[in-house]
């Protein structure tokens, strides 16, 4: 039945579309909230009945276990253990993101190379690694490669490196004095270098003369660091690895667990980033490359000044996605005894900590990491976005 309704007369509430929409959305939210409340009440009731703790007090209990490659004492509380794990996760994620981006961009560009061998090799890398589960790649590197290195008794010494299946040890820094002066001078140096960078860039925008900002900022920063180092009384010294019977002392040690996880994550994520970069380069209109050729840019300059900047605009959201995947994939360190935050949480649960709370804390940690990465990527995206698109 159709009726022509006069626009000035409002329909009664039970036929008013706007009222009904609000009413039903409210009712739906209420129903979902009730359901969530039911689940939560059920959980708490059952935990109470089993006598399991329902608070977060377990975090202040002493850990009782040791964490390798850290200064963590087993008498410290579980919260401190979680922080150590979170720090490990953070560092391996940041390193993984850094290396995966570089490798991914290189391979992605290589896939579009005019050289047949380069193109085919890149394609082989991408297709093989994209289709293998990350865990297998990590296990392959750990069990298949790094554990097969010579045992510590037969460690290979090559120049300043000592290689064994207990780790790759190279020259490192050792603190011999107070670092305060060095840190202060370095901070000042970074501020001056940043200011110089901005000044040179503005000068370039204004006059067109080459900015040489890397040389200027880098040189100044280096100068400041040198001055700070000398003024602080040479607080850092190089420590070289010394091969021992059971372990290599001194230097900077990369454990096989750390290396396997980093390699697995980097190679896997780089293969995905390569595909994204390839797609984003292909999305740059052909007219741009033709115009760059017409202006007389070399193919490398064309890539660097015309194609890649436009390609990155398109690539930022999916690449941000891959970064989030990398952070979450770092939890696969549990398979090879790398003490990252998921590992620590699992040890906590198996030593009697309440599972729901521990998992909530773990999810919170990953949420913080993921949201931070998303925030940064969104900021970059906003800066690069074309106005009006």
């Amino acid at each position, binding site marked *: 039945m159709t009726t022509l309704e006069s626009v000035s007369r409002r329909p009664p509430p039970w036929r008013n579309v706007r009222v009904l929409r609000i009413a039903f959305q409210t009712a739906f939210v209420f129903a979902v909230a009730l359901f969530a409340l039911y689940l939560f009440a059920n959980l708490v009731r059952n935990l109470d009945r*089993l006598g399991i703790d329902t608070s977060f007090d377990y975090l202040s209990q002493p850990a009782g276990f040791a964490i390798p490659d850290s200064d963590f004492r087993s008498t410290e509380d579980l919260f401190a253990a979680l922080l150590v794990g979170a720090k490990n996760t953070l560092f391996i994620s940041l390193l993984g993101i850094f290396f995966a981006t570089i490798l991914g961009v290189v391979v992605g560009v290589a896939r579009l190379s005019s050289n047949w061998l380069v193109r085919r090799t890149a394609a082989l890398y991408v297709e093989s690694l994209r289709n293998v589960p990350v865990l297998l790649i990590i296990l392959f590197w750990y069990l298949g490669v790094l554990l097969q290195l010579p045992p510590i008794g037969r460690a290979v010494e090559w120049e300043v490196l000592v290689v064994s299946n207990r780790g790759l040890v190279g020259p490192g820094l050792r603190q011999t004095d107070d670092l305060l002066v060095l840190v202060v001078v370095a901070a000042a140096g970074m501020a001056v270098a940043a200011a110089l960078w901005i000044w040179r860039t503005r000068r370039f925008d204004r006059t067109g003369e080459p900015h040489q900002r890397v040389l200027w900022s880098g040189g100044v920063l280096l100068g400041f660091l040198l001055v700070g180092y000398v003024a602080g009384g040479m607080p850092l010294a190089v420590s070289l690895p010394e091969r021992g019977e059971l372990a290599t002392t001194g230097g900077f040690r990369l454990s096989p667990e750390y290396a396997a996880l980093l390699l697995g994550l980097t190679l896997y994520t780089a293969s995905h980033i390569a595909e994204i970069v390839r797609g984003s380069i292909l999305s740059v209109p052909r007219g741009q490359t033709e115009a760059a050729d017409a202006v007389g840019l070399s193919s490398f300059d064309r890539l660097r000044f015309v194609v890649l900047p436009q390609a990155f605009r398109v690539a930022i959201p999916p690449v941000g996605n891959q970064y989030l995947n990398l952070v979450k994939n770092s939890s696969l360190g549990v398979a090879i005894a790398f003490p990252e935050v998921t590992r620590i949480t699992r040890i906590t649960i198996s030593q009697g*900590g309440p599972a729901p709370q521990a998992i909530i804390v773990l999810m919170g940690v990953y949420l913080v990491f993921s949201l931070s990465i998303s925030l940064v990527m969104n900021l970059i995206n906003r800066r690069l976005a074309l106005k009006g698109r």
Partner: protein
Amino acid sequence: MSLIRTRGLRRRPRSTRTGRPTFVGYAVLVAVASLTLAGCLHGGDDGEANLLDEVNERGTLQCGVNDTVPGFGFVTAGGEFQGFDIDFCRAVATGVVGDANAVDFQVLTAEQRFTALQAREIDVLIRNTTWTSSRDGSEGATFLTTTFYDGQGMMVRADSNYQELGDMGGTTICVLSGTTTELNLESVFRSQGIEYTPLSFEDNDTLQPAFQQRRCDGWTSDKSQLAGIRSAWPQGQGGPDALRILDETMSKEPLGPVVRDGDSGWAAVVDWIVLATIQAEEFGITQANVEEMKQSDNPEIQRFLGQPVEGEAFDPGLGLDPDFAANVIAAVGNYGEIYDRNVGADGLGLERGLNALWTEGGLHYPPPYR
């Protein structure tokens, strides 16, 4: 919206054209709301849980076990579960349901086992689990009679010169995660002031290659587990003679079955089935002579095997058949037979030691069946 005229067949019920939900929509909304409300207001369980009835109804026993420890919980090449703990699972199944094969074996890792028990995925956990106060208090678990008195030990390669723990300063030690082993290792080494690096793995599948490749110098676990692993050490790596278990015992590890808190009836059932195997050994009842023993003159034995003594068969009120003990012994044998078959003379070759009966100087002292 009411200005739009639908032509031909009415495609939507009339009321959706005004934005109002259909009768079905209303009905669904009311149903969902009332169900969630009812669920919310529904109080806790009424009274204590009754797992014995549930298992009888189901007809099978859900038993949480291990599948990587030779002698205790292991899967043979033919796909059969075999081991000390496995036999006790079968004993409980025989006692409760009447069929030794009515067991659903749930393989669990050390980290999962208590969560699986709490979440009711298993009825009983018989998986070389150590009885500790924190597990009793914080895991919602009730520990029953210890079936195996074990201790933590350290296994090293035979060609290394470690004779005692004090020699192991600066070493890397492999340990399984989520076990008391990890905590004991830390406390023992710290109290003796020995520096070491722990490598804690999820499961033996990754730990064993690491130990084989000399990533770590020592492997610590319960001595019975180490014995089992050593006995199965591949010939390509030197066989069992390539490994040595240090004499020092790092801790007490009483292993036994575990059930959930809050069901004392079920706990008593599992406890007494386990105790029946030990009591049978004390009486000298074996798998072979069970039938014969039923005609025994000893009233204690007759009562134990559920034979009528002066009219009625003795029923302690556990909820089991009066002759459950006889059925269990006929199915899996007594404690000594279970021990010999799996970890003793015919298995790993471990001495009875603390696991002997109290009459032989060991710790097994079953309460009287009366």
